[in-house]
């Protein structure tokens, strides 16, 4: 059985995410891990969930950061959600500490009047034929709760989808090697979001599921 490890930095609730991962069709065993040094133990997919502040999460990740970054560069599949996507970047304007540096660039504050961005926003997918987004369900709208975003340019080839808050267009979904990051919360984006999570898992572990 393939194994999924969820990093718990003890900042918020993981119930919906764990339930989204718990699909018999995926045939995976899910483990919640609070120790960053143990994240790579028996892991086929690493999930970085999306709760809390960057500084706190980076501090929790620090003891395992170098090894995890190397594993992701070597092709270990990973899914970062919201703050988890931001941890994939190099660093953040929100707080001290180093990210994994898998996604290029820093994390910056949203350039908008209303921050945090809270609510359902449209997701615009890059339509390129044969793009790596082809294996992901292209959900048209998703739930956001964030003040910060990855500073990467929306036209960078690793950006699979963007959203726009007021006039600020930012990366909604990124993919580098076998690492996927989503700035929205798929586990809070109803059925289409759950299908997104399950597709990422299926892609990572080679399972076949009906989206």
């Amino acid at each position, binding site marked *: 059985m393939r194994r999924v490890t969820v990093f718990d930095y003890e*900042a*918020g*609730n993981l*119930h*919906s995410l764990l*339930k*989204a991962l718990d699909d018999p069709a995926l045939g995976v065993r899910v483990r919640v891990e609070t120790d960053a040094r143990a994240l790579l133990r028996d892991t086929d997919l690493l999930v970085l969930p999306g*709760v*809390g*502040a960057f500084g706190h999460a980076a501090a929790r990740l620090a003891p395992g950061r170098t090894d995890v970054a190397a594993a992701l560069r070597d092709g270990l599949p990973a899914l970062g959600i919201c703050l988890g996507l931001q941890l994939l970047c190099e660093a953040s304007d929100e707080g001290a500490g180093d990210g994994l540096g898998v996604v290029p660039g820093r994390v910056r504050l949203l350039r908008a*009047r*209303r*921050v*945090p*961005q*809270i*609510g*359902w*926003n*449209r997701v615009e997918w890059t339509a390129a034929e044969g793009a790596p987004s082809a294996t992901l369900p292209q959900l*048209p*709208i998703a*739930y*956001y*709760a*964030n*003040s910060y975003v990855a500073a990467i340019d929306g036209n960078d080839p690793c950006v699979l989808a963007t959203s*726009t*808050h*007021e006039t600020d267009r930012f990366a909604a979904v990124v993919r580098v090697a076998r690492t996927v990051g989503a700035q929205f*919360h798929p*586990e*809070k*984006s*109803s*059925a289409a*979001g*759950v299908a997104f999570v399950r597709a990422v898992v299926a892609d990572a572990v080679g399972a076949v599921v009906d989206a």
Partner: protein
Amino acid sequence: MLTRRLIVCLDVRDGRVMKGVQFVGLRDVGDPVDLAVRYEAEGADELTFLDISASAEGRATLLDVARRTAERLFIPLTIGGGVRSADDVAQVLRAGADKVSLNSAAVARPELLTESAERFGAQCVVASIDAKRESDGRWRVYVKGGREATSLDALEWAQECVARGAGELLLTSIDSDGARRGYDLPLLRAVSHAVRVPVIASGGAGRASHLVDAVRIGGADAVLVAGILHDGVTTVRDLKAAMVEAELPVRSLAA
């Protein structure tokens, strides 16, 4: 562009959803988990549980309800009622809520908003404000479920809540609540222009056009609906359809 949200609110006491007018004639209308899942399927954008339990046992039951709901609900869940400290906030979030709404406890000790926002992020701190119009045309903040007046002006308190870390405001008009004659549009307008965080309109929804007015005239980012759904006056589906018809940006199930 963010869509305008439809939030369904359920009053929960001792683990059951209750319905009643001004706490009189409370009636059991069902299991909160089942109702929450049903409202998600109908197209609700978020769910709110308001705990109206009076006892410690009721509180413990609510945390269990939150756990069971989070395992079946895949839209955001807010829990309010009786949250007194940052440790209470931690407990509610840990149980499965995505946001916590703070009302009387924030008035009693405004630092609670800051402590919660610093620990868990502004996006999960909802300041809940119950306001009532005074004879001089201003709005006064009430606490304890609308039974006790404070010395606070609602506009000033709204701004202070945001300055102290609230990521959203849940604004309930005591004058409009339960009357089903529409939200308090002047109150909504005043508050939504005074702050930079999303404002959720609450109190007074009687039909779909009231929701549209709250957004269009009141400037609300989200509308909270309770009684008219539980009484079967209308459905989430019909309310969402009316918002689409009015050309408001909303998440439709077809999308």
